[in-house]
């Protein structure tokens, strides 16, 4: 299974903490996002991706504790046992 965890405003939007999906071969984070959306009635992709499918700059996406900007961004592969987190941090102080 792949565990996708939702934090802060994403969690508030979706009203759930996480979703678990079975792993499928050769899937990327970008593909996983769309698969998660099919499992959840509330639209959330617009919080992560722009109209061209590129990463927006408000939410961190982590795979196994690493920001995907330091992996292969949306092309980062995901596999069975991975933990993916969507976290839009608070910017103010």
């Amino acid at each position: 299974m792949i565990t996708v965890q939702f934090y802060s405003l994403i969690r508030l939007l979706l009203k759930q903490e996480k979703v678990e999906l079975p792993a499928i071969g050769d899937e990327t984070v970008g593909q996983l996002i769309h698969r998660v959306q099919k499992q959840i009635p509330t639209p959330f992709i617009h919080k992560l991706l722009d109209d061209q499918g590129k990463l927006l700059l408000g939410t961190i996406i982590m795979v196994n504790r690493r920001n995907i900007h330091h992996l292969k961004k949306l092309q980062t592969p995901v596999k069975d046992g991975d933990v993916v987190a969507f976290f839009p941090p608070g910017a103010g102080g």
Partner: protein
Amino acid sequence: MVMADRYNRQIALWGKESQEKLEGAAVLIAGVGGLGAAVAELLTRAGVGQLTLVDHGRVDWPDLNRQLLYCEADIGRSKLQIAERQLRRINSRVKINLLEQQIDPSFICPTEISTVADCLDNYVSRFHLEANLPDETYLVHGGIEANQGQVITLQKGTSQPLADIFTGVQQPRGEIPVNGPGAAIIAGYMANELLNTILGKPQLLDRFLIVGLGDLHLDFLDV
């Protein structure tokens, strides 16, 4: 009761040895606004030996809903000067140092500092602060925006850098919504973690505490 009894209630909690550690500690607080003012007050009341405050702002009306050290008479005045005056009134035993400057690539962290509170309000300054800390320094980061906030402790040279964790996150345009209770809650968690860290027991090392200020949920995210 006399002044020497001022820490009795907390010594009952963590013991004399821990109190002595706090009194020997030097903490830098970067940003003395919504989070930093409350953190500074709590560390001052706890008896942390030395606080170095860094800010370059002046008190303005929109600050007064949450920045606990300032009042109407302080409008237009240097935040650091006011903060120093207020903190000295609270606890004259704490040594207060002021660095009235922006945190940019030239920032130099004083050598005696072992623990830093990131109470800044923008990512660029946060990344400059972190980049200029000596290895092994503990950085307790806090952030708040609308009904959410987060706190994490990182150790320079060992933990993932904050700049790596937050790569790709853009500063929101315009004013960031924030209220007084929310800032006080996140600042409270930060102050608690700073004391834990000084005492050698950080609870949020490489672990975000994510606080939902509206629905009051708490989450952890390991990094």
